[in-house]
């Protein structure tokens, strides 16, 4: 059997006074787009941070491409890209400098960095702004720069927290197309979002997290079948699963 791109096994995360993630087990296959949705405070961002190695689980294991994120963080992160919901980047760098810094830290050869930047910038039509200081960027341009930075090292797994916030309609379409192509080429995407339309449109499988626990998981069709609501939208299924009647 193929090693899953992401595997969480009985993961718990406890903060003082809060049990944020409870016994979470899930896996994302290669070439799959997996969406995690849930209300505020459900534990989505905590889960994302554990996958990307920003925080340690209190118990359980997190693996990326078979590498334990806690025990072997450098190898686990080598083929991982993380796009956060707050695309904060050092204000004193230009977009191009940030992209080159990222590429260098992922050990992409210098010539390769330059050609990939050129290609990815053209995709978003960002050549005209990339040499300005990051402090001067609009929210959307910051988000696009961060997306490009995470594609530079040609990762096999992308973890995305709110993928399209701040993007204009055109850029949203480009981004969704980019992610679909990424999965088609064998890459895996774990995305966290409140925009249910994006999850419904992009994801192969959807999971609903509520109060730190996985309450539902499956394809949209499977979720509908479990809820005995054959024509329900993802929004209706979500509200049912989280205890809010539509």
């Amino acid at each position, binding site marked *: 059997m193929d090693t899953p791109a992401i595997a969480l096994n009985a993961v718990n995360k406890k*903060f003082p006074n809060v049990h944020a993630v409870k016994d979470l087990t899930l896996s994302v296959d290669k070439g799959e787009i997996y969406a995690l949705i849930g209300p505020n405070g459900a534990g989505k961002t905590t889960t994302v*941070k554990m996958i*990307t*190695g*920003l*925080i*340690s689980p209190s118990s359980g294991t997190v693996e990326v491409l078979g590498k334990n994120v806690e025990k072997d*963080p*450098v*190898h686990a*992160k*080598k083929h*991982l890209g*993380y796009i*956060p919901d*707050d695309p*904060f*980047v*050092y204000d*004193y*760098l*230009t977009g*191009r*400098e*940030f992209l*080159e*810094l*990222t590429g*260098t*830290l*992922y*050990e992409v050869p*210098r010539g390769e960095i*330059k050609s990939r930047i050129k290609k990815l910038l053209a995709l978003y*039509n960002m*050549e*005209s*702004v*990339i*040499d*300005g*200081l990051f*402090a*001067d*960027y*609009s929210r*959307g*341009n910051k988000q696009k720069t961060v997306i490009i930075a995470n594609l530079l090292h040609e990762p096999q797994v992308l973890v995305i927290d709110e993928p399209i916030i701040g993007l204009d309609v055109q850029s949203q379409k480009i981004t969704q197309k980019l992610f679909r192509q990424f999965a088609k080429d064998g890459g895996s995407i774990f995305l966290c979002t409140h925009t249910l339309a994006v999850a419904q449109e992009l994801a192969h499988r959807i999971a609903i997290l509520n109060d730190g626990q996985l309450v539902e998981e499956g394809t949209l069709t499977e979720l509908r079948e479990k809820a005995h609501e054959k024509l329900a939208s993802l929004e209706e299924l979500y509200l049912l699963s989280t205890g809010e009647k539509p």
Partner: protein
Amino acid sequence: MSQAQALLRLDFLRIRNWFGSFVATKIIVFLGFALVLGLIVAAEFFMARTFFMFTSTQEEFGRAVARYSINAALLLLFLVSIGSSIAVSMGSLYRSELMQFLLTTPIPAVKLFTIRLVNAMFSSMWLVILLLTPLLVAFGMSFSPGGDFILRSLVVLLLLIVSSHSLGGAITVLLVKKTGRLSRVSLMVVFAMVIAGSLLLVRFLFPPSFFRLYFAVDWPTFQRQLGQLPLLASSLPTNWLALTITDGWSMATLAAALGSAIVLGTTLYIGKRLFLESWKKAQEGRFLAGKQNPHGIVSSGYPSVFKGAAGVLLTNELLAVMRSPAEATYAAFLTGLTIVLLFMMRSVPALQNAAPALLPAVYSLSLAGVSYLFMTLAVRLVYPLIAKEKRSVWFIFSLPVKRETLLLSKAAFALVLTLPSIPLALIAGLFMQLTSGVLAAYICLLVISTATVSLIQLLLGTIAPNFSESRNLDAVSTSGSGLAAIALSLAYISLSGFAFFKVAIGETTALVSVVTMTMLSLVWLGLLSMLSRRALHRYNL
């Protein structure tokens, strides 16, 4: 509640809420800072008292020198206070995110300007009060300046604070109005101006004629030579203030009060006319969203100065300082102070004839003084290195780079900042005319001290980073670990000064002192490194 009261209440709420959680810890931090400040004030008082007691025995000559010293201190503090108020006003008026909200409310901009100016004045006036009070108390105890000395001192303090902060506020508005965002070129100009200004100031305070005073044979000659010094020019406002302290109420006091009122009035007028306009200019920048390449932007890649992950991250830290107006001006300000200190050392050899017994202590104090300046630089630029990564943690901690490598790059940055201590130590030693063996000890101990202090700041900032103040670098060190870092650094600096004193009086050899301090440094840093490596993997962000 009036608008003004509501705005002033904001600051009260900020302080109250700061004490809202972890009360016991914060009270300890507060008391700790009070203790550190108390020690600094006590040390300054001790030195001033020793100096004034000595001069008070020298009859008219001593009294005149004491007056000159008060005058010089007032001028220095006036300039330092202007610099400090520019830095605080820049943050309070232009960088505060709260201002973005307040300017959308129906509060007149002039009212906002005035209240924020008062706020900036309260935030930074403590520097003047803490530095001037011990000096005035020591002067009052050593001479008999009259029954109303306390009242006169308070009036002088008030006038000095109001005039320097008003001037600082006005300069800030005019600077922003003229330049908008500070460019790299204008930053370099500011840097050059501060250094040139410091050199001029030293020349102004201690002109060659000052050193001829020592050879004056009688009182009339001494008086005549003293009166010719530029610092005592009757048109200099700080001279009016100094006269009020040393000689009592006079027309000079009235002139100082009128001068301060005029400066305050002019600043408020400038604020009324230019503040809103300058604020808007500072916000404009180059908003990058369109398809057109804005004028003046050229393509430049990431500087490949150093190799490897640690090297690339070190470059990032250096760029952060070089491209930040606040950090660069702070470094320029400290450079200026260092130059003043350095040139004061030039007059140390004159003590050889006057009071040779004081020389070892003066040498040690100079070493501690330079180390202290490097510590203040490290408190601002090195201690927050981990805390300031809070918002970029998604990037820096998700990289396939060991966290130890990140720490290594920051340690390299901390050490790069201390590199100027090598030429500084050499110049200071040559200025003070140290013998070759003592000079070698001076250089080694100063370099070890600055490097150790810088690393102490980094490691304690890693063990317990103050993430709650990650966006306010001025306040990052106001935490338990920040206080511990300052206390530990001061302890190390004191020990270095003591170790050098032992060499200077010939009680120990340079080699023994250097080896002892190196061993101590290795033990402290080794222990802190162990704790910080552990802490690096335990942040819950």
